[in-house]
């Protein structure tokens, strides 16, 4: 009885399989989506950093809506997951924010419209590089952030330091960190991941991969020099990871006055104003390394789904988001840096506290954009967390090996 029933169940499923395959859910998606003209209802999905960003986006979308077209902006709780679901189901949002670190994983499903933008030359070169694959600019960079050095001015003065002491080189950074390190306070704090330590790699002239992200370049003398420098800072106790001083991240450590200097992104400006308004600080560029100045950029772009039925309308919407005045409005609403160079002067005038971050755009390195590098870099983070106890050479060898494997070398 039982086997027969099981067989019947499988037979039923077997019958259903081809049946449902004929249904609309399983259509072959190799065909380009048929385009529709006229009024469109666009679905826009972002990962809003907070209510302010969502509201600013919704306002901008409402301002764009005309001739019966409208755009609904939603904030995803988990953008990668919700995008993946949309792509797998064949109904992705028309316009969506793509994080640079995930960009290449989505590239096949995106409309490469970037080269057709009239203002593509106005976008910061580093951002253009980040969202370029096989020579094509896929999407318009939404905005960006960079890293800089925040300095507690009270501590600075108390240690007898002046403006001339602001660190320009690694040696100077170590020396001021040493002077600022007192009994209860650490000189320098930064998060224990590639997104901070990576800046030192760039300053030494290194990086995990080559510019095209085709070759692993982790195990190099440049990278070794950078990691050795970081290890020595940590080993000397003049720099610490946040968790070593009982803080969740570097912003918290700096705000709670557990550290006198912090390497952080420009989101810290809003965070400090909100959570630690009493702390007096200034932001300066990161010191240069042996290979010159270097910082990291973090960015998202406006992806348009290759499957969208309203690609023209989507492009118009993105254009409206990319207008200089709109970019400034976004910057004001949630503290990001506009991605167009022509807005720079206005932006710096309006937000002088951000100038060190904007200056970083000239020599900022974008993140690795290959999705399959995610586990490799997570493993790299895990290794970095073991510093200063771990051997930099071994960390880089492991990164080299894993990167090479991920790149299919």
């Amino acid at each position, binding site marked *: *009885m039982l086997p027969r029933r099981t067989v*019947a*169940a*499988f037979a*039923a*499923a077997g019958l*259903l*399989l081809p049946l*449902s*395959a004929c249904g609309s*859910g*399983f*259509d*072959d*998606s*190799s065909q380009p989506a048929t385009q529709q003209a006229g009024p469109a209802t666009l679905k826009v999905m972002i990962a809003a950093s907070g209510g302010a960003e969502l509201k600013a986006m919704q306002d901008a979308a409402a301002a764009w809506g005309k001739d019966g077209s409208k755009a609904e902006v939603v904030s995803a709780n988990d953008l*990668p*997951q919700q995008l*993946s*679901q949309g*792509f*797998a189901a*064949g109904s992705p949002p028309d316009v969506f924010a793509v994080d640079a670190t*995930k960009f290449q*994983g989505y590239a*096949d*499903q995106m409309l490469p419209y970037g080269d057709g933008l009239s203002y593509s030359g106005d976008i910061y070169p580093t951002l253009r590089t980040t969202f370029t694959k096989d020579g094509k600019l896929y999407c318009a960079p939404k905005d960006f952030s960079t890293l800089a050095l925040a300095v507690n001015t009270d501590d600075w003065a108390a240690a007898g330091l002046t403006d001339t002491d602001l660190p320009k080189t690694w040696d100077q950074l170590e020396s001021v960190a040493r002077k600022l390190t007192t009994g209860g306070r650490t000189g320098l704090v930064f998060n224990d991941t590639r997104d901070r330590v990576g800046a030192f790699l760039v300053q030494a002239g290194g990086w995990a991969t080559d510019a095209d992200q085709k070759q692993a370049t982790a195990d190099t003398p440049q990278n070794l020099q950078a990691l050795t420098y970081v290890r020595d800072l940590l080993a000397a106790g003049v720099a610490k990871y946040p*968790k070593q001083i*009982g*803080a*969740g991240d570097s912003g918290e450590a700096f705000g709670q006055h557990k550290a006198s200097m912090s390497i952080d992104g420009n989101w810290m400006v809003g965070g400090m104003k909100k959570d630690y308004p009493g702390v007096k600080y200034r932001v300066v560029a990161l010191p240069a390394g042996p290979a010159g100045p270097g910082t990291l950029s973090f960015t998202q772009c406006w992806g348009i789904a290759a499957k969208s039925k309203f690609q023209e309308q989507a492009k118009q919407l993105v254009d409206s988001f990319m207008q200089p005045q709109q970019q400034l409005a976004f910057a004001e609403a949630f503290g990001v840096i506009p991605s167009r160079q022509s807005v720079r002067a206005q932006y710096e005038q309006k937000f002088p506290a951000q100038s060190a971050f904007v200056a970083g755009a000239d020599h900022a390195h974008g993140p690795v954009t290959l*999705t*399959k590098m*995610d*586990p*490799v870099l*997570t*493993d790299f*983070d*895990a290794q970095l*967390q073991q510093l200063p*106890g771990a051997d930099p050479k071994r960390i880089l060898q492991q990164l080299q090996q*894993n990167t090479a*494997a*991920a790149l299919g070398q």
Partner: protein
Amino acid sequence: MGTLLTTPVAPGAAPPRGTRGRRPLRRDGRAGWLFLAPTLIVLGLFMVLPILMALWVSVSDWTGNGSPFSSRVHFVGGDNYAALLAEPGLTRQNFATSVRNNGYFVLFVVPLQTALALFLALLLNQRKLRGRQFFRTAFYFPTVTSSVAISVVFLFLFSSTGTVNAALKLFGVDGPSWFADPRGIFHLALGDPADPPAALAGHGFLGLSWWDWLAGPSVAMCSIIVLVVWTSTGGFMLMFYAALQNLPPSVDEAALIDGATSWQRFWRVTLPQLRPTLFLVLTLGLIGTWQVFDQVYVLSRGNPANTTLTPAYLSYSSSFIGHQWGQGAAIAFLLFLVIVAFTLVQRWALRERR
């Protein structure tokens, strides 16, 4: 189902020869199938079919774009499974790490939650206990609240400046940054040596050295263990409690008259009678703990240093974040095999010995 039919037929009974006997049986069979059809269709559509689809995905190179049955998706055989089990590399290492983490999780959670649930049920079952209703609710409460909400509360409790560390400070203990500490507790017990014994560090299994296999749950994982034990115990307690209430008091009284101590009565009289419930609790516990996902997703996402990575979360992140759908599906099927294996072992261990 047999009882629903107008003419029940004993399974395996030979059908009577001749058309007179067969026709009503066939008609009954048809009616049976008709009644079964809605269930079969629903089960087939929402359970069997997705499982078969996932099985196909696990042996394909689907990239998550459109249908997995389109002509652009190819059969890759056991490649996805091989990457997880055979080929040296980060994929295999991460899978092994997730299995190790979850193994320790099961090893700690299942005995703890079972023992605690039984203990609480025994307490509640005492006739002289006052306010039984209150305690029953109090113990059961964590189970009915959302695991996500509880996880968020634990995030605050176990933060580096949270309640747990504040409490530890009262005893002069400097608490760790719970969710940031990747060190295994067995390694910590040995003083976290920088140079592990070469015999353990030099050899390994699935790309992870024996030294790493023996690390024990990380400090971060320990807080998840505490969380899960706390939330799941109440439900299992209720099962034990229901079983205890159903035990005939006469057996216990007979043992009492025979002069058995309370320990002997528990160990030799009560516990053997609870064997079916114990089996149920252990089975549910084993299955549930091997599938732990919510807490990891909310609290740590595998961090720090992959020490809270579990196969269920790895399956999710490989698929949805890494776009390696085949690998994600393969992990899910390997996890299924692990659960089946453990359930069989447990069934064998708890079998009735005669």
